[in-house]
């Protein structure tokens, strides 16, 4: 028997023994814990051999077969402390008491694809593109593939400017979207949506297609109060920088108010620029943009970041408010006030190339600009699927003035300019539905006044103005008063795949130009030196627009017939001209979507352009101290043909965007301008009647790709432009050809978790040819390299460097700039403390070269010196 027993025992030990471990799990108060897991691990390993889940009485029973003499037993339950105990591998009963412990899971979620597409809408997930060093939504926008932000803040999508910038579907800023882009914290934004083929007028949505693209900012919350406040100071001289921008976005109301002031070279005035293509076109159509007739001789600005050279002292106050009213109306009020004082210092050396040789001119300049402007806009709008109504009442006032000091060949010259401008306008557009047809009513009424005065000391053009004797000063006065109205009525009708719009309209424009030149000697000048021009223009137009849309085709044909009539009369000079002409200006657009990735667009058109009042005045005007201009010519007319074709590819899944376009413009003009360069360097311009052709070719391409795996955004772009035209220089006719080639690239990549690198570079090659004589090539390179270090303890160091190189003749100018930023973020209070050292190398002078039609101008510009700035930024 005994042997049998030992044998059995031996066998048992050889085979794996089967053990059962059972017990109960309770909490500290003696209550059972249900659904706790009791796991048996192989001694000090992470592999589970057996486990059980406690039942409704907290009981568990684990049967395990294992050779291990000892195992680890672990009891886990959510909300309780985990218990681990080493036990021997023998059948036993073991009870556990777990103490409570709050347990918070580490929250995670699968990263959403950075760009999503649904129909015509692309959604860019902001958190996929944002970086630690970003502050405003504009910073993040720059990184989104397919989207390009130009230096002035203009947003392009696939190479074309956007037509609307919405915040939560509302157009608060009407084109002045830099206000939001520069100030809205990106943390408040969940998505940036690109709305392709966007028709902003809802009632025309299914009727009239559009190939324009709009951008919509989608916020995280339906009610958002946000914004930023920043205050900073530095030296030398004493610098200041402040920005307070509160914003509110809710379903019924949107508000953005900003006060900004600085003398650090940050040109905040650019935030008041209208940037959407639609608003720009309107501005052009209604000639509502400020035109300066007279000027102080300026320095041409360096072609790199404004912050390095702009010497300003700006105050900007802008308030924008949108309120939804009853019956789907919305009221919008935009009021902006700008005050700026800018200074420019430098010298220019100008070389005029003429067939008879070169003329040199050296000017040392000190200019002061005073800007003072108020812009207001009141808009009432209703945009529903049934009706559309929009009325905007606008007032703009510019009380600007400039002062310029020039040392010309060791002699001083003073210029004083008052360039004021006032405009008042009302714009009404209303669309009603009549059955299935839409009736569109449009009316624009504008009134503007441009009273400007330039005084030059000492008097110039003695030969013309003062019997060849030197004199103290000359004063040019101009005053232009313009009434303009444009009214049209059209009916839009959709028939199957076609949409027909028949339009009839009338434009009237009356401009009165009064100008005169007076001299300090009160010399009696002939009437040739004053204008009393009465300019009347009318245009009656009929237009039939046909749109065709089927499957992947979108075709638009516009066939306007215009009756133009011009009556120009200068009673004093006894000059007059009457022109009446009928023009047919057809235009065809064809868009074809090859598939959801590839698109082709093409257009062809003929149009006519007539001169504007600043291209035709019978009396002399002293435009600047060295240009006195009289354009005693017939009305300038040109017939323009243009062709364009473009391809675009977008693949949001692979985040790959590509576009390329070519355009050709040929214009036939009736006038040629003769620029006569006088011995003293002054330029006199006359027009000669001679039919001539100008042509230009433009090619541009851009490719952008986001690589999520390495969080990198790559962009390559290139463009080439060729312009050919004839010009008269010093009485001989010469053919001029300008070529311009630009190649650029941009890389944004995360080298490690905490180091981010941004590089952008461009190469510009410009050359110009007069007759068959090649002029030397100008070659400019711009490279910017930024390194951003985001340290763990919320500290940030940014190294910014910019390299600019220009070469002309055998001369090469190189400049390297660097800035250092250190930022510390107090996470809890969302406060940034920032220290900035700008222009580390202290470069104070910069030389740029400009190629004109017939001259090379090299400018030496005074830059901002090395400056230290301390800033504090709060999120509101």
């Amino acid at each position: 028997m005994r042997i049998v027993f030992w044998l059995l025992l031996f066998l048992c030990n050889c085979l794996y023994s089967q053990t059962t471990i059972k017990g109960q799990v309770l909490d500290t108060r003696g209550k059972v814990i249900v659904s706790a897991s009791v796991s048996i691990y192989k001694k000090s390993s992470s592999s589970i051999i057996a486990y059980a889940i406690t039942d409704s009485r907290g009981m568990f029973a684990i049967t395990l077969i294992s050779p291990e003499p000892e195992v680890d037993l672990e009891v886990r339950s959510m909300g309780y402390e985990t218990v681990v105990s080493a036990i021997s591998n023998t059948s036993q009963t073991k009870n556990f008491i777990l103490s409570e412990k709050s347990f918070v899971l580490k929250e995670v979620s699968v990263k959403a694809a950075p760009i999503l597409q649904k129909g015509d809408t692309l959604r860019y997930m902001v958190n996929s593109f944002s970086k630690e060093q970003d502050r405003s939504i504009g910073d993040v926008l720059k990184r989104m593939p397919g989207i390009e932000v130009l230096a002035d803040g203009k947003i392009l999508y696939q190479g074309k400017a956007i037509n609307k910038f919405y915040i939560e579907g509302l157009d608060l800023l009407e084109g002045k979207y830099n206000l939001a882009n520069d100030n809205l914290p990106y943390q408040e934004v969940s998505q940036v949506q690109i709305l392709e083929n966007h028709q902003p007028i809802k009632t025309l949505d299914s009727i009239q297609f559009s190939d324009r693209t709009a951008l919509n900012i989608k916020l995280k919350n339906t009610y958002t109060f946000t914004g930023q406040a920043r205050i900073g100071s530095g030296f030398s001289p004493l610098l200041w920088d402040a920005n307070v921008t509160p914003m509110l976005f809710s379903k019924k109301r949107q508000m953005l108010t900003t006060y900004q002031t600085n003398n650090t070279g940050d040109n905040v005035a650019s935030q008041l620029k209208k940037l959407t293509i639609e608003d720009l076109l309107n501005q052009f159509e209604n000639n509502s943009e400020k035109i300066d007739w007279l000027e102080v001789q300026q320095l041409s600005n360096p072609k790199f970041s404004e912050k390095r050279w702009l010497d300003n002292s700006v105050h900007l106050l802008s308030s924008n408010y949108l309120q939804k009213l009853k019956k789907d109306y919305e009221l919008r009020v935009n009021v902006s006030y700008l005050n700026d004082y800018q200074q420019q210092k430098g010298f220019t050396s100008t070389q005029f190339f003429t067939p008879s040789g070169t003329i040199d001119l050296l000017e040392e300049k000190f200019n002061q600009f005073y800007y003072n402007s108020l812009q207001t806009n009141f808009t009432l709008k209703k945009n529903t699927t049934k009706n559309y109504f929009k009325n905007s009442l606008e007032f703009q006032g510019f009380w600007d003035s400039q002062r310029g000091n020039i040392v010309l060949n060791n002699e001083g010259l003073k210029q004083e300019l008052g360039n004021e401008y006032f405009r008042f306008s009302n714009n009404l557009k209303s669309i009603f539905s009549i059955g299935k047809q839409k009736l569109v009513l449009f009316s624009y009424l504008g009134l503007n006044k441009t009273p400007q005065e330039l005084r030059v000391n000492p008097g110039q053009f003695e030969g013309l103005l003062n019997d060849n004797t030197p004199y103290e000063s000359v004063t040019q006065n101009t005053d232009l008063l313009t009434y303009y109205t444009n009214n049209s009525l059209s009916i839009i009708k959709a028939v199957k795949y076609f949409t027909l719009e028949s339009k009839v309209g009338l434009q009237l424009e009356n401009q009165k130009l009064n100008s005169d030149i007076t001299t300090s000697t009160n010399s009696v000048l002939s009437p040739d030196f004053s204008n009393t021009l009465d300019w009347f223009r009318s245009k009656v137009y009929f237009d039939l627009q046909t749109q065709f849309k089927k499957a992947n085709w979108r075709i638009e044909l516009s066939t306007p017939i215009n009756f133009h009539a011009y009556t120009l009369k200068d009673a004093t000079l006894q000059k007059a001209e009457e022109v009446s002409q009928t023009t047919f200006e057809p235009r065809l657009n064809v868009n074809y979507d090859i598939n959801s990735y590839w698109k082709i667009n093409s257009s062809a058109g003929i149009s006519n352009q007539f001169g504007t009042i600043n291209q035709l005045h019978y009396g002399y005007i002293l435009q600047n101290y060295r240009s006195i201009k009289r354009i005693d010519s017939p009305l300038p007319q040109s017939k323009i043909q243009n062709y364009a074709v473009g391809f675009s590819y977008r693949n949001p899944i692979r985040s790959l965007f590509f576009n390329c376009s070519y355009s050709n413009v040929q214009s036939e003009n009736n006038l040629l301008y003769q620029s006569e360069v006088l011995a003293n360097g002054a330029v006199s311009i006359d027009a000669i009647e001679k039919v001539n052709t100008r042509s230009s070719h433009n090619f541009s391409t851009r490719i952008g790709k986001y690589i999520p795996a390495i969080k990198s955004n790559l962009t390559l772009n290139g463009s080439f432009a060729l312009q050919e035209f004839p010009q008269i220089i010093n009485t001989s006719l010469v053919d001029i050809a300008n070529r311009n080639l630009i190649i650029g690239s941009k890389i944004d990549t995360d080298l490690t978790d905490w180091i981010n690198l941004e590089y952008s570079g461009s190469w510009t090659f410009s050359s110009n040819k007069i007759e068959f004589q090649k002029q030397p090539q100008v070659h400019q390179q711009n490279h910017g390299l930024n390194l951003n270090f985001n340290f763990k303890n919320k500290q940030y160091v940014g190294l910014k460097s910019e390299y600019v190189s220009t070469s002309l003749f055998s001369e090469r100018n190189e400049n390297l700039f660097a800035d250092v930023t250190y930022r510390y973020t107090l996470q809890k209070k969302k406060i940034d403390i920032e220290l900035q050292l700008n222009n580390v190398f202290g470069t104070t002078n910069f030389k740029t070269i400009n190629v004109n039609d017939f001259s090379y101008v090299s400018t030496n510009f005074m830059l901002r010196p090395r400056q230290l700035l301390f800033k504090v930024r709060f999120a509101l």
Partner: protein
Amino acid sequence: MKPQSLLLFAFFIVIANQTYAQNFPKDTLRYEITYDYSYQVNKEDTLSKQKEQMVLKIAKNFSFYASFNNMKLMDLEKNWKESDGLPDRKSLPRTKLYYTIVKEYAKNQMIFGDSFGQSYLYFSKDLDKFEWKLQEEQKEILGYNCKKATTEFAGRTYVAWYTTEISIADGPYKFHGLPGLILSIYDTNKHYQFNVASIKNSSSFCNTGEQSQKPTQITYEEYKQLKKRYKEKPSTLINSGGMTFPKEMLDLADQRAKEKMKFENNPMELTD
């Protein structure tokens, strides 16, 4: 109108503020787990894959599992007042999965609810028993260390990845019983896949009995029969709610259902 939209319409017409929550557990939630659920309705056609996001809401003593959009719909109904008018159908969240699963750990009981036409039916039964085979393999999902386990369920073999870092013996659908939360589970053909999309802490209140209609209890057998009938001849159920629809519409719905049934030859549960 599609039969689905018809149902949706009916769904909103009938308002029953009364809720029947006697047997339904309710409590403050602790965690909310979402899964991306992808399922292939036709055996051969890999393009017939459909996707929906599912939510597993976890409280101390129970869990509640349903389609994310279905939950949204339920919330909408809950807050809907007659004065609001009928909502725009386009703006409503869309779902094809109307079933809900409540797992009560202590009672070892599951409440399975589903809506047919205008009625919301449920049955309760014991939780399914899973024989999990633990494997050595490990991998990381969303930063959680996961272990592999396999099981057989209703005629399919499943691979599950669970994490002991979250000691909740639960998972998507009817799956449960591992010593940790299931973050990913799929059958070996990869026709039915559940992958975790997010893990969140929660403190909102969940009442599993809050349904738009008064839930009616049936037996498991009855449910199976109803399900079969609904698939084959939905008209018999659409009409039962007191509203009548034109015959052509019903015939069309039946016709569609037949075609659908023929195509959808790949149910998740092949056997009982």
